[in-house]
């Protein structure tokens, strides 16, 4: 098997080598070849031995960590659909509905996105980066199941080209491409992303006001609650345990805080994601929501009095913190700036949720905003680092 694949790639390589007829397609060839087989390149410069880690391994683990969310997402899409339509809740038919809906989205996300990646790699003659394999999955998990496929394709196109390729590809982008896609869709197609009929596949006429980023039905309830927010949530069917388990309508992969925590544990165990960013974000959210709680009175918005643990399980705070904020490329690079970055994401999330009436959910915008500030944060701490060094100049 391995021999066959090796010889297949070897014979293909004869046509795409520099100077050959299809040399322009070499990046495409390299992408598939390096996907199938490990490299045979050897070191030319000291150090002469290298670690086994590579970017493929790194990205692969992020994808693995998202699989629980994806599988639960498929289930939940079907479950919510059958629940709303009053159909029987047996697992096979639920999963079938979910698969019918989610797999086409995955195909669109990977197909269209990788198409653009390949195209730009061919034009610029550099290798295809593995980063998009993660972004494509993230994009699907943050989309509502009802989004038309053409809109997903347009969003992916925007996210890959404007979010990443115009800056030079993976590693050189300053915004998270998956969130760029999500923000583009959110602002371009509000009817599909925050209208009445969007959140539950095949469902018509749900009378809750529904908003933005993340299946934020619970957030919409909280934002418009008149009396006690927790009572309003519970009476609308959003109990704390349900929100935690994720059996609520929402975007495909982000409803279940529990499974996001499973993914987070995997990411932290393997050391792929920064625990500083995650912890910082939780600290920021708890601090800001507690502050608002302390200062909320009878006359302020009832939403301000919502306790932190509700904030944590509502919307896609958990998903955003674990998978989006920790994207290494668009987050700052130093330990100290990661703390600030995480804390600010938590703080801004609560502020946008509670204080800004236009967007009941704030995670997406908070992370994108902090993406923009990441280089500035790094700059501050690099300058501090330089001040701490004993100068060594000539």
């Amino acid at each position, binding site marked *: 098997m391995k021999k066959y694949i090796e010889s297949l790639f070897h014979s293909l390589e004869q046509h795409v080598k520099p100077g050959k007829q299809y040399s322009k397609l070499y990046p495409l060839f390299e992408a598939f070849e390096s996907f199938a087989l490990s490299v*045979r390149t050897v070191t030319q410069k000291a150090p002469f031995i290298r670690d086994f880690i590579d970017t493929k391994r790194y990205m692969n683990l992020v994808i693995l960590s998202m699989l629980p969310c994806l599988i639960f997402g498929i289930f939940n899409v079907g479950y919510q659909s059958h629940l709303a339509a009053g159909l029987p809740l047996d697992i096979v038919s639920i999963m079938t509905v979910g698969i019918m809906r989610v797999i086409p989205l995955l195909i669109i996300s990977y197909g269209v996105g990788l198409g653009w990646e390949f195209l730009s790699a061919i034009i610029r003659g550099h290798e295809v980066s593995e980063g998009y394999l993660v972004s494509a999955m993230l994009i699907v998990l943050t989309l509502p199941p009802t989004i038309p496929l053409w809109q997903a394709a347009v969003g992916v196109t925007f996210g890959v080209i404007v979010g990443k390729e115009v800056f030079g590809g993976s590693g050189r982008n300053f915004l998270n491409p998956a969130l760029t896609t999500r923000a583009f869709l959110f602002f371009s197609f509000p009817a599909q992303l925050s209208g009445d009929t969007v959140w539950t596949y095949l469902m018509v006429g749900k009378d809750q006001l529904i908003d933005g980023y993340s299946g934020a039905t619970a957030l919409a309830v909280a934002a418009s609650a008149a009396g006690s927010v927790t009572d309003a949530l519970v009476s609308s069917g959003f109990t704390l345990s349900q929100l935690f388990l994720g059996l609520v309508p929402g975007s495909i992969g982000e409803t279940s805080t529990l499974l996001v925590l499973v993914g987070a544990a995997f990411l932290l165990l393997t050391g792929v994601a920064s625990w500083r960013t995650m912890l910082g974000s939780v600290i920021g959210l708890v601090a800001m929501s507690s502050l608002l709680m302390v200062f909320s009175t009878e006359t302020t918005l009832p939403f301000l009095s919502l306790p932190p643990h509700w904030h944590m399980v509502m919307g896609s705070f958990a998903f955003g913190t674990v998978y989006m904020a920790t994207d290494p490329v668009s987050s700052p690079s130093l330990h100290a700036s990661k703390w600030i970055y995480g804390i600010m994401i938590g703080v801004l999330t609560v502020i946008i949720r509670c204080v800004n009436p236009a967007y009941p959910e704030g995670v997406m915008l908070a992370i994108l905003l902090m993406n923009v500030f990441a280089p500035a944060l790094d700059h501050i701490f690099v300058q501090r680092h330089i001040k701490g060094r004993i100068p060594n100049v000539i």
Partner: protein
Amino acid sequence: MTTSICKEVEVPNHYSLALAGVPSDGIRDLAPPQQCVLSPSAIPFLKPKLAIKEGDAVQKGAVLFYDKARPTIRYMSPVSGYVSAIEYGPRRVIDAIRIDVNDSLGVVENPAHTEASIQELDRDTIVSLLETGGLWRTLKALPFRAIASSSVVPPSIIVALGDNEPHSPSASSVLAGRDAEIRAGILALKKLAPTVHVVAHRSDTSTQHMLSDLITVHADGDFPSLDPGVILHGIKQTSDDNSAWYVQYQDVIRMGQLLLTGEYPSEIVAVVSGPLVKKPEHIRTIEGVPYKHALAQLPSGNARYLSGGVYTGRLSTREGSLSYSEYAIHVLPERYERELLHFFMPGAQKPSYFRTFVSALLPKKQSEASTNLNGGVRACIACSACPDVCPVGILPQFLAKALYNNDIEGALDLGLLDCAECGLCSHICPSKIELTAIFKEAKQRLYKESMV
């Protein structure tokens, strides 16, 4: 003096990789080689000018070549014999000088001293003894690691008793029985600089015991905690300390031998190791020994030959030799073979700095090194692992980006000249960026500019 007043250097970001092929402790005496091969082109910053031509007879300790810019920096013949060949590489660099050994030619005699008489010598005499003896070349100046200039008095000289790069000669084995020589060498160094920092590794108790009155610094941590640049980073107080000199400890022993006997000391203790070496061991041999003599048998198939360690060594070939002041030979497999769908595999056999392989959960095992890059070259993904392994607290990712943008001022601010060139950042980079090579090349450019 007691050890309690020693300075302590803790290398915070050390990273230990357990490489297979730890050499056995005893030293095997190698039969003298028939031919010695020296490589002037392997010496950084040197413009060699030959003092001999093909067919000449040379005595042990006679000048083979010297630096065109500083003719007092001489390189001596480690053996007596006839120059059988001088091989040139591209652009007429001198790749190899081959000397067929003939012991009947005698040796060059320099004045011999005793420890007491060394004590009486002044700086200039020591300088000229080292220059005419051919060992001045062993004194290197930080930050560029070029050969020191005798007209400069450095703030200090660093002598690390040992080298913990995998796998280097064990300091306690090398130093055994060399008490008088190392003391004479350090005595001479003390004439050259106001301070000599003698560094021992905290775990090396036999060396600490042997030279307890001389040792002033204790280093702790894995490779590269005994690198002079790393030690300097740990002990320096002001910018004035940056231009410290250093000498490898085997060269200090050889300085002592030169001063005590008057004869050029060409005997060295080296290590042969690497997965392709059947029996990793210490050997006692002479400078310029060809690999094919030092290794019982040369491995067949694709092999990488290195003079020096796997992190900082010099790329060589099957035909190569241990040149001046090189104390290890490594033979690694050139791994071209490929693995199917490698990144889906759990990786129990793949030890890594990262916890991304199942190997992280298993007990730590010694791993077999190979030269495979283990991944494709990509843009930096800002994983932020490189600052965590840097022994001198540099932020390699920012430094590399500054150099990428030709921001030399910024690079100097970020500590380019502190870089110990240890190779750890390149070793762990998931994007396979040649960080160490980028820094080394930038330093070499700066050195050349500063010389003009």
